[in-house]
């Protein structure tokens, strides 16, 4: 497993490889979730995850533009310096459910954005290099904006479905 405690990232190229992987993997996760919600007939939540994937894509593009002209190192999946099992914005797979509602999905995304922000904030604090600290602080601030946006989505959400709807085809076979 990737280490539990934050590890030191000391070059800008290494940092950018982490940032790009973090964003790309998060986009892939949202796409995967959107696909599976579609397969399981939860179109509302599928749409939401698709939207999050789209925003992630835009953000990934922006992050990549910061790395223009750099030669980035190849880091193997198990050698990333995350303190989460996967990239911090790839939320734990087991926390989703085919009958989750939009509020739960936004809360899930909020958790991811907070984890991303915390990762960048830790690098901004721990890296020995000023240029890495600076870039990480900038990214942490951006993630904080995303956190605020999601919080406002939650506030504005008109959700009749605060409890899970009844499952007409429940998993356990009735007696």
């Amino acid at each position, binding site marked *: *497993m*990737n280490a539990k405690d934050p590890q030191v990232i000391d070059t800008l190229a290494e940092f*950018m*490889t982490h940032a790009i992987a973090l964003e790309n993997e998060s986009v*892939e996760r949202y796409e*995967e*979730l959107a*696909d*599976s*919600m*579609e*397969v*399981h007939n*939860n179109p509302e939540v599928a749409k939401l995850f698709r939207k999050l994937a789209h925003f992630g894509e835009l953000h990934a593009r922006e992050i*990549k533009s910061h*790395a*223009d*002209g*750099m*030669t*980035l*190192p*190849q880091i*193997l*999946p*198990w050698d*990333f310096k995350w303190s989460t*099992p*996967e990239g911090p914005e790839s939320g*734990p*797979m*087991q*926390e*989703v*459910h*085919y009958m*989750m509602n939009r509020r739960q999905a936004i809360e899930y995304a909020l958790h991811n954005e907070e984890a991303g922000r915390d990762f960048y904030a830790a690098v901004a604090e721990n890296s020995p290099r000023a240029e890495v600290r600076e870039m990480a602080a900038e990214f942490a601030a951006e993630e904080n904006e995303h956190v605020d946006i999601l919080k406002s989505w939650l506030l504005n959400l008109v959700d009749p479905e605060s409890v899970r709807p009844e499952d007409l085809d429940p*998993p*356990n*076979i*009735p*007696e």
Partner: protein
Amino acid sequence: MSTDTPLKPKFYKTEVKPVWCPGCGHFAVLSAVTKALAYLALPRKDVAMVSGIGCSSRLPAYVSVYGFHGVHGRALAVASGLKAARPELTVLVAGGDGDGFSIGGNHFLHACRRNMDMTYIVMDNEVYGMTKGQASPTTAPDWAESKLTPHGPGVPSFNPAAIALASGASFIARGFTGDPNGLAKLLVAAIEHPGFSFVQGLSPCTTYRPEQKEWKNIVRPFELEPTADPVEAAHRIQADDGMSTGLLYQSRIPVWQPENLVSTQVDQLERGFQV
């Protein structure tokens, strides 16, 4: 921007959308398999994935290599035939605990002792997921959540790693889908291992075993380095609660690969069997 990363895991994914429930551990096995293949940079035409039946056995549909979605419990038999005929292929076998340890249990024993060069990934969720949640050989005796086993299976679950060791497997590992990167690393070692490599992937079933969400708080890495001594391995496996992950045992024993003789016509074969 440039990186020297040659292949992305996505290269090994098909366009088919998995049928798995959102939250299913099997997604992480798909991720780990594709990460391992990307790391090894195996040409897609040189890899074949064979499976049985079950949610887990859907895996070949989602991995962009040759695939064969076989018969329930017979993945290892099909894969052995394939490896015998096409030794140059990297053969991966996938399935669930029901597929591999119930109906396919006997094939599992003999695949272990035969030690053909292939990798067997069992996505163990301690339940038959596809058929709506019946107990499997790895289900605890007191699991009473299914109405099909109202008082629980009542018989002890068995320990796949112990059985693999007793049957002569030369590579035994356990991974967890809550740690897909760790699982990918184990799969790389398994695929590189010459001989039969068995990887038990603890893969929670979010629908029929929601309590398995707790596994993330229970699973931990094996504290010791892998051993090549079967006696020591047996001791470790039996002393463990089945929730420690990592490479448990690896030994070098002869790999069995039948020699492919010049091809034979069917009528020649038939003559050989005439009484």
